[in-house]
């Protein structure tokens, strides 16, 4: 189980941070989502395996926004409340492709190592 959890002390290490970025980028690639929806989506898709500590999404979201990989817009939800919706920018889409490719290469390599033994 991969726990993407930042316990509130110290910064996540590069690998974990990179992974969280990838998850976020992927999650909003189809349609704009707000923070809570992103957390829910990651949990659901991964079959509850990835337990993202919900709050740690926000520093990551803001960091990605600073890098101009994602953009944000305040919109009304179906329930009529104001929420901040994140969506990919062109740069973000390129980044997603790059990171996704890196990830498949990495996981394939790890699989190879693990299964050959």
């Amino acid at each position, binding site marked *: 189980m991969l726990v993407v959890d930042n316990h509130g002390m110290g910064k996540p290490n590069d690998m974990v941070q990179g992974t969280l970025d990838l998850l976020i980028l992927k999650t909003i690639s189809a349609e704009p989502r707000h923070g809570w929806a992103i957390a829910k989506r990651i949990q659901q898709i991964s079959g509850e395996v990835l337990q993202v500590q919900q*709050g740690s999404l926000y520093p990551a979201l803001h960091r990605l926004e600073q890098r101009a990989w994602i953009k944000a817009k305040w919109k009304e939800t179906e329930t009529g409340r104001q929420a901040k919706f994140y969506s990919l920018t062109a740069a973000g889409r390129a980044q997603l492709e790059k990171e996704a490719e890196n990830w498949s290469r990495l996981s394939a390599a790890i699989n190879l190592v693990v299964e050959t033994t």
Partner: protein
Amino acid sequence: MVWARQLWLCLQTLFRRGHVAQRLDDEIQFHLEQQIAENMAAGMNREEARHAAMRTFGNPTFLKEETRDTWGWTWLEQFVGDIRYGSRMLRRSPGFTAVAVVTLALGIGANTVIFSAVYAALMLPIPFKDVDRLVFVMKNNPPRGWIRNNISPTEVISWREESGAFEDLAAFSGASCVVTGSGEPEEDPCEVASSNLFPVLGVRPFLGRTFSAEEDKANAPKAAILSYGFWRRHFGADEGVIGRAIVVNGLVHTIAGVMPASFSHLYATPFGALPEMWVSGIALPRQDSDNDCWGVGRLKPGISVKQAEAQMDVVSARIEQESSDLHGWRAQLLSFRENISGDTLPALLVLMGAVILVLLIACANMANLLLARGATRAGEFATRTALGASRSRMVAQLMTESLMLSLTGGLLGVLLATWGCKGMAALAPKYLLNSAPGLANGAADARVLAFSLAIVLTTTFLFGLAPALQSSSSELTESLKETGRGGAQTRSSRHFRNALVVCQIALAVILLAGAGLMVRTLSTLSRVDSGFSARNVLTMGVPLSGEQYKQPQTVVDFWQRVIAGVKALPGVESASVSRDLPVDGWAGQFFTTAENPNPPAGQVPDANYLVAGPDYFQTLQIPLKRGRSFNELDTQTSERVVIVNEELARKYWPGEDPLGKQLRPGSPGSDRPWLTVVGVATNVRSQGPELPFQAEIYVPLEQFPWMLRPQNLLVRTSNGIRPESVARAVVDQVHLVDAGQPAVDVKTMETVAAEPLMQQRMVMALLVSFAGLALGLSTLGVYSVVFYAVARRTKEMGIRMALGAQPKSLLRLIIGTGLRPVVVGIVAGMVGALMLTRLMTDLLFGVKPNDPTTFVVVSVLLVVTSVLACYLPARRASKVDPMVALRYE
């Protein structure tokens, strides 16, 4: 457009922080509410749902903080916070703040003053093309020990044409230009310059042209080039002056050009005056071996000063065969930079060293103050540590406070420096002002300000870092326990503070020793018997100009009438005229004696020639050892007479009676008449008090009026009458005889006599003030350390007294402990001073750099002030009531 989006966000987070933060709150609030809603939908009650939502979310405050960190402005936010907090802390202890700011202001101000002088003299760019190849050309005579002499036209031409060292070599001679014809006659320093001077320097005129080669000839029509200042003053910056006529020294000159405002005199010797005008017609006849020029040369590329001198010496060795006047002379070149800074360099370096020491003492004091303050704030730091502040944050906070102190101090220091620079300019010798015209501007220069800022930042680290590290490292539990007891003083911090005192005292010893040596130098110099009395004597220059004064008899008549008129003034005791004044001016010339009319070349006697009117000796109160003074009977038709000084008589007629001996001015075989010695005058320190006596020859004005140029009027007033008070009346007498002659440089002889000492006087005044500052600061340092230690030991004192210790023995204990670092500092300082004062040997006179008296006085002074600094807090402690002391804390 990635960068545009990034920039936009960056600016948003900087300038709309409140708004952005509010939006973040909203965002997280929305998230939590969504989660709560979901949890409630799953069947929890509201309270449970909220708790569960918070659990899955994490600590919102911390996460918000971490999010804000991604915005990238945290450092600024913290810095602003630190400044707010720091200014609150500093306002809360105004005494500490004031002492700290003033300490730093004095240290930084002193550095700014001296640095601006160093900058003006040593680093200011010299505004000439390829200045590295420009040299100032003089000559020296090693066998005779003469240096930095004028050169002759023969040498200018021979060196230029034969040495192969120069691209070109120009010449000029200093002169005095009296401008008449428009309003008041005015005398200005000027230069007779060869036409290639301006091309050699690579300077173009602002208006008009420079001289043509044709105009160098003696009989060519005269041309003049004006300085920018002269042009503004006299012609109201009228651009139509070119081609107009101006009367200079009685001759019509055509105005050829105006030099730009930035054109500087920096090619000339710093002892020369700033020229207001350049006139043509230097002529430079090849056969003329009189030394009346200076040279300015542009070396060929790749030729060094040493190489050039060697090549020129080959030429000198040849031409000295042709003229005995040139015997023994060799080239002496000075690069422009060296020429400008040379004479002031040692003084400036000593002063720069001194102010750096002052700054170090100020830093040590600051560190001491901050340590003491850090100890009293230990509780505050401990609390902050307990609340999670990291050590680096606390160091940053303390460094911010230090930076605020040093910036404030620096600002005040720079303001003080503008005053300081004016003061220094007032003390500075004339030639320093000439070579460093920017001196009085103070910190006005951007580079000087940059230096001050650099000093501020450096000092902040010097004094701030150690206390910040020390204070932030205090043991948490220890400090919390100690809170309310005035803070902890660990062994290491006590050692550190004592080490600071040792350094301060050592540095103060060095400064005080330097200042003491200068005081001794000046007092020795001022006790030197100059051989004449400057008291009650007024001097002024009257440079006679105009066609009529080309007749020697007119000059004599003019002076006889002026002197008669001045003598008749109430309050005037006597008056006379002379070419040079003692201390100011030197006119060396060869002579031969009747006993040895043909000395071999290189051994021709020389002496300073003074042309003097009757009553010269009486006016300056120079006693005559033998014979008589000049009088009205020494005229054109009477026997040619001369008065020599003791030194000349001793050298050339040892053991004989000089009266009646004969000597003849000029080189051997000169066609001038023989002069008979009629008197022997006491030796006068005519080159300043620190230089040895020179052979001197006085000749009477009436027999040698053509030699009288420039002319100085000397007036002695009666006792009790200030010489300045008759100045107006004396000038009126001059104008009564000829209204067309200006009277310039009106000053007292005492001022004239003090001029050679001005550099030493300036160095002394500055060193004494720096040493005073050092003494004050280090005494304050000792005081604060003892005061603090005593405050910490109040309870111990109480116990000792309760056990029967006498106040006296307590006093002894405290003073003894306090003095220990002082004594170590004095010893260390002595060692340092012995090494460093050697560097100021050039500035000293009559005292050795390791003068024991000075060192003893300095040590005693420091011990006395330190005992006082220990005594005040010690007395307070010994007066404490034991009961109060025991209950203290």
